[in-house]
């Protein structure tokens, strides 16, 4: 039950996009088509989970024992960057169209604050390894869900006559804002 609450909390209540406002860049960049959104989501799930495990291990077995906690951020960034490179290679091998569709946004996961955020939150909230892992899965599922919902809306908006001034990113940001308002309804669900 505890783990389910953890997942719901990370995915819905404190959704990384709608509530914590992390990872907005890929959220806006890769949400034009649902197919790429799903691909990106899967990549993020993979990277986030892996990153949170690796960083947790590094934090508890390297940084804390040697008292290098002040280097946490830089070490995490290094590790995440390496992980993203790995994912990039795998995707390029496995699915070239997805690789091309994700384009610049794939390397951008490197600096995706959502991934770093999840790693740092794990430490901050004093989760154990399993909890960190679950939390990362929940958070990345929430991110993927947000991405897919949003891509659905945006594909639909392509067919609409949006005033010229609002076309593209402006309307995407407004829509994200309204969705974020709607997701606030879940607040208080998990303390």
């Amino acid at each position, binding site marked *: 039950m505890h783990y389910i609450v953890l997942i719901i909390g990370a995915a819905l209540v404190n959704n990384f996009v709608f509530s914590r406002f992390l990872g907005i860049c890929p959220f806006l960049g890769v949400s034009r088509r649902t197919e790429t959104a799903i691909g990106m989501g899967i990549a993020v799930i993979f990277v986030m989970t892996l990153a949170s495990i690796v960083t947790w291990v590094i934090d508890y077995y390297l940084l804390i024992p040697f008292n290098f906690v002040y*280097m946490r951020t830089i070490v995490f960034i*290094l*590790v995440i*960057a390496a992980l993203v490179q790995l994912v990039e*290679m*795998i995707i*390029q*091998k496995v699915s070239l169209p997805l690789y091309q569709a994700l384009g610049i946004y794939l390397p951008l996961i490197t600096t995706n604050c959502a991934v770093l955020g999840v790693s740092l939150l794990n430490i901050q909230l004093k989760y154990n390894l399993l909890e960190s892992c679950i939390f990362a899965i929940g958070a990345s599922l929430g991110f993927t869900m947000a991405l897919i919902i949003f891509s659905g809306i945006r594909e639909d908006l392509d067919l609409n006559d949006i005033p010229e001034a609002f076309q593209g990113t402006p309307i995407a940001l407004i829509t994200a804002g309204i969705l974020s308002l709607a997701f606030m309804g879940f607040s208080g669900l998990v303390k």
Partner: protein
Amino acid sequence: MTLLAAALLGGIGLVCALVLGVAAMTFAVEMDPREKLVLDLLPGANCGACGYAGCAAFAHALLENPETEMVCPAIHENDVKKISEILERKLASLGGMIASVCCKGTVKDVADNYIYEGPLECRAAQLIAGGSKACAYGCLGLGTCEQVCPFDAIHIGEDHLPYVDKEKCTGCGKCVIACPRHIIRLAPFDLPKCEVRCISKDSPKEVKKICSTGCIGCMACEQVCPFNAVTVMKNSAARITHTKCTGCGLCVKVCPVDVIESVIELKKASILKDKCNGCSICSQVCPVDAPKGELKNPYTIDEAKCMGCGICIDKCPKKAIEKRL
């Protein structure tokens, strides 16, 4: 302490590097590095005029298949050269093309057969009794060309006719395909000097009835053209052979319905006084009587009359006439 920190960071970095190195070997994908270079040189509008699914697909085809021609109409000539160097084979560029609109019939010039109701899209309007414009060949003016242009290079003016932005047009030909009336043509960028803005195939009588600026096949242009560049055929608007046309603009002047337009501004002729021997040949060949003067004395060009056709320049035995800068 600091040393230890550096060592730790370095250690982590080393481990990551090793993992990545192994992964790079396991998941290696054969990717021609030239593909990216070629892709960067292509226009990147993914207009599809080459027949491939976007620029990336075309770049891939160029590398994969050595028989692929440079079919991209939108690319700049310099970029074609660069791509030729990358591919180490000669690619012939299509040459800079530009779209040009062959109809001048505004709403005022051509009556409508009926009141059209429906989507404001030329291709859709064409489906309903062949379009509302009385002329079956004229521009419908609903702006489909504007909508399909990936380069924002064609716009419907206030008179409901499309105008091509020469700076932006790449000659990709999307509007040419989209136009249901086929009034947009591609022409080499520098070639056309005069254009007949009508493609009607109606009989002259019919044209006269429905359009105040349609070509009525009066042959005036054909007769006046000093270079045999204009031809008028039965039941068809006049056509200009661009390779023969010098852009002298005589036909523009004589056209009774104003359907021929000068596309470029021509430089006028001027006579070098010290070279001219007053042979009067120029005044004999000039179609508009622009050179003035007396025999044996240097001639001058009446600028108001000269159209810059350049006939006199070719005929002058002393090479005393040149274009004014």
